[in-house]
């Protein structure tokens, strides 16, 4: 138990510190690297909670795909982050004042009225215990394709829309693009591939329209 607590504090502190570093870091590439560190620590917290599948997803999806995408964007687009952050220190007091006021109000509100613990909640689904021999991943899989089949398919349709949308908004049929067509290449024979041109003395060879294509 004590060991779990030690790891919890290590992961939690690192997650918060690296989260802060994401916005403090001057170099945007460093910021993205700190973001990846934050993801790893959050994944560690998930493992401590017994949700190893979520931890895997976090590492694979967020670190493997999203953070790498961020890195690409940061490196490809020339965004001047120093300029974006120029007003940060100047505006910080105002932001702190507004944020602090809202926070104080919320705390006062909840102190006065409580969190509404009085409602009898609907019973939560039971987590599979280690003794049942069902792993976290398996338990998710069992309901994802049965109880939640409809949601799963719905999410699939949303991804289809995203794909169609991305193609509609970006694909352009450019004129004059040379494409390779293997059947056409294979079907060529000397009669169509070779053109014999009579060259008058002293002039250049002008390729015919057929040969240019």
């Amino acid at each position, binding site marked *: 138990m004590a060991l779990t607590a030690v790891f919890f504090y290590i992961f939690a502190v690192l997650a918060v510190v690296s989260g802060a570093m994401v916005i403090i870091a001057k170099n945007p590439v460093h910021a993205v690297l700190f973001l990846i560190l934050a993801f790893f620590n959050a994944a560690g917290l998930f493992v401590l909670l017994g949700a190893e599948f979520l931890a895997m997803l976090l590492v694979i999806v967020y670190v493997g795909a999203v953070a790498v995408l961020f890195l690409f964007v940061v490196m490809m687009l020339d965004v001047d982050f120093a300029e974006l952050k120029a007003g940060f220190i100047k505006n910080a007091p105002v932001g702190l004042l507004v944020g602090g006021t809202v926070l104080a109000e919320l705390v006062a509100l909840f102190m006065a*009225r409580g969190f*509404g613990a009085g*409602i*009898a909640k609907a*019973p939560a689904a039971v987590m599979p215990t280690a003794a049942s021999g069902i792993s976290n991943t398996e338990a998710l899989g069992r309901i994802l394709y049965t*109880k939640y089949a409809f949601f799963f398919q719905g999410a699939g349709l949303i991804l289809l829309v*995203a794909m169609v949308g991305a193609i509609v908004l970006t694909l352009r049929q450019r004129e004059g693009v040379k494409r390779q067509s293997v059947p056409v290449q294979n079907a060529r024979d000397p009669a169509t591939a070779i053109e014999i041109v009579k060259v008058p003395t002293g002039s250049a060879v002008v390729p015919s329209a057929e040969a240019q294509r």
Partner: protein
Amino acid sequence: MTSFLTGLGPIYPEIIIAIGAMALLMYGVFRPETDANAEATGWLGVLVLATAAMTVALDPPAPASLFEGAFVSDRFTDFAKLLVIAGSAFALMLSFDYFRRVKSLKFEYPVLVLLATVGMLIMVSANDLITLYLGLELQSLALYVLAAFRRDNVKSSEAGLKYFVLGALSSGMLLYGASLIYGYTGSTNFTAIAAVAQGKAAAESLGLIIGLVFLLVGIAFKISAVPFHMWTPDVYEGAPTPVTALFAAAPKIAALALLVRTMHGAFPGLGPQWQQVITLLAIASMLLGAVAAIGQTNIKRLMAYSSIGHVGYALVGLAPNSPEGMQSVLIYLAIYLVMTLGVFAVIVSLHRKEGQVVEIADLAGLSKTNLPLAFALFILLFSLAGIPPLAGFFAKFYVFAAAIKAGLYPLAIIGVLSSVIGAYYYLRVVKVMFFDEAKDKLLPVPRVPGMIVVAASVFVIFFAVFAGPVVDAAAAAAKVFKF
């Protein structure tokens, strides 16, 4: 294992449209990219929607629920789904001639409209916070792309981007609310939430109420109720006109149906709490819709403020929390759908050789150059203003009658006053059409929009004669909810 595959009857409309959209995508991709093929895809899309509408109409009236209560089907969903499908189908039919004139006819357009429609149908049938969110996102994502569909046009891209950013913000609020509701009630299912969120404990639970308010804010964004309407005029103006027609018609109905289902399905025990919010939204929307439209010179922006106002009137029917109120909302939505599609069928057809006409001043002297079109627009605008004996009058009449019966006199009085103010800007368009000096002739109205204009005008004029079926269907749909 077979339990969730058998008895899929209630979800057939969604399945038909989803499979239809994928089939059309394949059809479009593997055929040469010509205008004729794109239009053929579009008409096939209309056919798919018609098939789905038939399936909805043949749906047995008994309430049914699927996927462990995540998806419900009853008279209310059938009514709303028929309206949504009709809105999408007619908006799709309006698009072909327009996109051919602006040279961006593409086969993806009907595919995206179909997928958006699936999202709207899922919203209408939602009985779970996850279903709600999935339907909403499916619908919204397709609509963001449609708003930016003319990607070479700056205004269209701007509309798409604005709609996307603000829509993402509203989704965030909605999700935050949903997570609070889940946290405080322990379930995402509306029926389970309703069982828990009852009585004094729920009314005093600050967390649950904050969650409810955030959820309402998210939905209010989607129906563009004031003060969450800021995106509407810009998006309506920038999006291609047939897309604007779609925005004004189908998603509003779906989101309002979703609002009704969420409030009555999940929070019947918190009635006084959400009624306050709805009343405020209704008053603000009616007033802003009436006042802000006066200064507009662009007819699409005018229609945006008009639609904001009409959402306000529809919410008036929701505020009393009574069967009459519910019935009046449904009647209002049906009539609003016809009027809006009619007006947009006119706007879509307004073209000159130089391009589309969107300024109200350009309509000057329309009565001299094209009297039938001017007359139809005159009828439709008078109906939107709520002048008897046109359909728009009956829509407002039912809503205000329900509010008065529930004793909400201030709401009804503000509603009547704002519809008087609102009549001014509709009348101004009519004045420009009939009494100003004629400008250059417009291009002839294409056949399909022309037919939709005629059909909408006939419905609006003779609504009093055949109101019976609509009113009865709305009454049957309203009976689904207990009050």
